[in-house]
């Protein structure tokens, strides 16, 4: 497992012995080690809960998961009494028990919806609501609030509370990215446990006591760690909200697209929340083999550039000092006409380990058409510090893919490319999703010496201004394709929004450029490209994008052994 959760209450070892458990009258077999909430879930019964989270310690404070349980009745011989149905008779405990902290055991009986259980839930719901503000319509959590949801399902119709509510701090600024409304907090302690257990950043706590208990950070301290926004996800109510997302969009309007984060080599699985071609948020999507239920704040918030003002929306061509829009097909034809006259040694390609496998594969094919290995090629490595939680030291999402298709030379060719351009030996540069200056470290002076500069990226820069051709590509949210994360897992990106303006999906740009330059094309769709990719790489053979599925497939270490 790549993500070290403090707890995994929802996972049992494969060899866990099976226990016979009666759930709402049905006898079923379930692995030892599950608590009642998880056991019920496995047989399709939902036990409502607030404080319980499968990845955090169990605190048992909300009491929403109260159930009725029993153990086998024992005869005088200390053996279970067997009833008429051949199953053990159950002695029901007259007091409700919390499902989250009760482990299943052999012969146990569970009632998830008996009158006693319903009564308990009704009671707890009422208690949770009496001091809660009644302004759901203006609450940011509306639509994702478990209080709202469960109160409809399990609560009382009318309020019996005629007293004055307890008042607590509102709109507390507890961190760079988070706002707290203490009146909405139900004191489930999930956020405290997450910060303590998962991130080891124990800055949250409860102050005061009793009904006045108040979630707080110490004055002067902030909930600013790189995982802070996960607390917003796990807060069952609207107490913790993301400043970035707060009140921007009602969640029920959001379309959710399964994809992956491209912020580092971990490749956290995500949902892209979008509406009308605008991405509003990224949220983690559960994948136990990658990120469990979490993602880092940097990755989560690192999407705003796709709607930036500097976004290039239109292919352009520069003649002398004038840059003018150009039709895609004209651009491809003009590039073909100009590039033909150069020898492979005069051409260099700076690709990116942020590109998908499909794009990298097509780029490798294009390079072959331009003269193969004589064309100096590399990507820009990006390293940071691994944080021991999710973030990888490799800040490129697809370094493995870039290696696999031999686009990457670990950055070792970058200096040679720089020298070549400066010495005038290299006359043509095709830079994709890396800025030749800002990312690859070339000088503006060197760029000026090029006969032909082709850039393919998202945002305007000096390089795109002076490029002979600027080809606006697509962001991760606008494309399909695959990447291989640092652990050798092949995962899919999915398209959440349309490419804006005249921009084009990069695989299509490459496909068209390749067929324009080298002629002939049998590939049209991303599936077809992937098929071709899979056919060329033994480690991927037999795979298709649909077989990769939502959770990806492990392809390393074979993928790491590069084939020709």
């Amino acid at each position, binding site marked *: 497992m790549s993500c070290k959760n403090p707890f995994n209450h929802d996972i049992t070892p494969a060899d866990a012995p099976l226990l016979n458990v009666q759930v709402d009258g049905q006898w079923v077999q379930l692995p030892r080690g599950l608590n009642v909430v998880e056991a019920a879930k496995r047989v399709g019964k939902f036990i409502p809960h607030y404080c319980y989270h499968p990845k955090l310690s*169990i605190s048992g*404070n909300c009491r929403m998961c109260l159930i009725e349980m029993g153990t086998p009745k024992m005869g005088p011989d200390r053996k279970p009494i067997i009833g008429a149905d051949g199953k053990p008779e159950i002695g029901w405990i007259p007091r409700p028990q919390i499902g989250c902290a009760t482990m299943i055991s052999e012969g146990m009986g569970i009632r998830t919806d008996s009158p006693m259980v319903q009564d308990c839930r009704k009671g707890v719901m009422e*208690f949770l609501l009496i001091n809660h503000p009644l302004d759901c319509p203006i609450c940011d959590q509306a639509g994702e609030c478990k209080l709202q949801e469960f109160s409809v399902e399990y609560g009382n119709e009318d309020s019996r509370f005629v007293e004055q509510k307890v008042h607590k701090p509102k709109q507390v600024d507890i961190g760079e990215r988070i706002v707290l409304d203490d009146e909405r907090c139900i004191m489930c302690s999930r956020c405290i446990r997450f910060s303590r257990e998962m991130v080891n950043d124990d800055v949250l706590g409860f102050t005061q006591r009793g009904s006045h208990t108040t979630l707080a950070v110490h004055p002067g301290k902030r909930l600013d760690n790189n995982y802070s926004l996960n607390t917003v996800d796990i807060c069952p109510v609207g107490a913790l909200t993301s400043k970035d997302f707060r009140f921007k969009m009602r969640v029920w309007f959001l379309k959710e697209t399964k994809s992956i984060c491209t912020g580092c080599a971990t490749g956290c699985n995500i949902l892209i929340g979008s509406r009308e071609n605008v991405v509003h948020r990224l949220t983690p999507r559960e994948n136990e083999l990658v990120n469990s239920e979490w993602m880092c704040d940097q990755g989560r918030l690192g999407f705003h550039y796709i709607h930036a003002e500097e976004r290039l929306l239109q292919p352009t061509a520069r003649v002398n000092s004038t840059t003018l829009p150009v039709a895609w097909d004209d651009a491809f034809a003009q590039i073909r006409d100009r590039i033909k006259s150069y020898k492979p040694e005069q051409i260099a390609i700076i690709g990116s380990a942020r590109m998908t496998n499909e794009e990298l594969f097509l780029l490798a094919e294009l390079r072959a058409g331009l003269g193969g290995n004589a064309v100096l090629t590399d990507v820009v490595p990006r390293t940071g510090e691994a944080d021991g939680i999710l973030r990888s030291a490799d800040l490129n999402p697809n370094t493995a893919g870039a290696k696999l298709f031999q686009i990457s030379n670990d950055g070792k060719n970058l200096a040679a490319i720089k020298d070549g351009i400066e010495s005038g030996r290299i006359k043509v540069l095709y830079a994709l999703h890396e800025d030749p200056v800002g990312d690859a470290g070339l000088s503006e002076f060197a760029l000026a010496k090029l006969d032909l500069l082709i850039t393919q990226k998202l945002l305007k820069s000096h390089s795109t201004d002076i490029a002979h051709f600027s080809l606006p590509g697509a962001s991760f949210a606008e494309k399909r394709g695959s990447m291989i994360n640092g652990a050798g897992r092949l995962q899919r990106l999915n398209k959440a929004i349309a490419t804006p303006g005249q921009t084009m999906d990069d695989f299509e740009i490459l496909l068209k450029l390749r067929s324009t330059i080298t002629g002939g094309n049998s590939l049209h769709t991303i599936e077809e490209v992937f098929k071709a990719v899979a056919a060329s790489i033994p480690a991927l053979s037999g795979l298709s994008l649909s077989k990769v599925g939502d959770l990806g497939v492990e392809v390393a270490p074979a993928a790491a052994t590069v084939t020709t």
Partner: protein
Amino acid sequence: MPAPAEYRLVFKHIDEPGYTNDIECYLRHGGYEQLKKAFTMKGPDIVNEVKASGLRGRGGAGFACGVKWGFIDPTKNTKPVYLICNADESEPGTFKDRQIIHKDPHQLIEGMVIACYANNVHLSYIYIRGEFPLGAKILEKAIAEAKAKNFLGKNILGSGYDLEIYVHRGAGAYICGEETGLIESLEGKRPYPRIKPPYFPAVLGLYMCPTIVNNVETLCDVKHIIAMGGANYAKIGKPNNTGTRLIGVSGDVAKPGYYEFEVGSLTLGQLINDVCGGIKNGRKLQAVIPGGSSSKVLRAGEKYKIKEKQADGSMIDKEIGLEDIPMDFDTMAAVGSMSGSGGVIVIDDSRDIVSCLANLSEFYAHESCGQCTPCREGSLWMKKITRRLADGHGRLEDVALLKSVADNIAGRTICAMGEACSWPVQSFVAKFKNEFEAKGRAGKGPAVAATNGH
């Protein structure tokens, strides 16, 4: 029948003229002799004596002390075992441990050393409530004296057994009397009681090690069990209700105070009327809270059906009145209440019973730790309703509402505070229904409160 005489065992020297709380005085009265005797025994033998004594915990729940100790098998676990003396004494109506701490601290220390030795404990704490600053000083002095005389510390009396005891002060929280809240508090955390399972103190107690928590009185009893032997101790009191019990009487009696009796040897009526001189100012009895504020109230004139064991072992059904209830664990439970912490609060007929409940509900709302939903929200709600009723802002429907709120708490919380706060409400409302309804009917209904929901 006149009340039997007091049976002073734990309170033997309390308030005895000339008896002081220093070690010299204690030694002159045979102090630490039982410790020496205990050192001639093996730990498990001491545990067996305590089992044989039938001693039930004096902190409130009445759990058999020997059985509790039996959960811990020092031979079977590799973790250290801790013992904590619960000197939090915060249950309203209870004021017995204070006497021991202030006036005979060495009795407690001796009992603790014996208990620690029996359970192979080497580090022990006395958790004393913060409002006993003098008591804490007295205990610290007693510990220093005992250490100086090698009744504590390293190689106690040459036995090779080491033990340290430290005093740890609370800071004004009733919930620190609940044993797992106490443990959390002692660990330096908010005293949030732990969920059981899995955190039974005997398994995962202080620092996640096996831990014994015993009340002050219970630990003192241990000394006397060593002195007389478990079997002899069991002869005091009644079967399953052995030994003596410290009882504190407060409220509307002529002579409130603390007493020690053989368990079950006297009735509630004898206690109130003979021992405590009857109801004050010639008034009549209205109600009794028999075992600390959390126990269910008994109403004057009530009749209870109980089973009584005859000499030949057979059981007969019997109807008794409040005055006839013998003061023992089992009978108090049989009449629907509990002997709890031994604090008896007497309420005369001039008192507004609704106000009495409002007072207690305010206590529980103030003391709820706030960890779990029903107690956190319900205790404050009940306080607000009872306060309104008492202050003339009630409604008739508040009476049923009050009961319903209490019913939604009891049995559904993390710790027994859930019961502690709802039992008084349930019992007061059920037994004084007319009084509550009258208040509700006469009430003006809720006024817009001016406070911040306190």
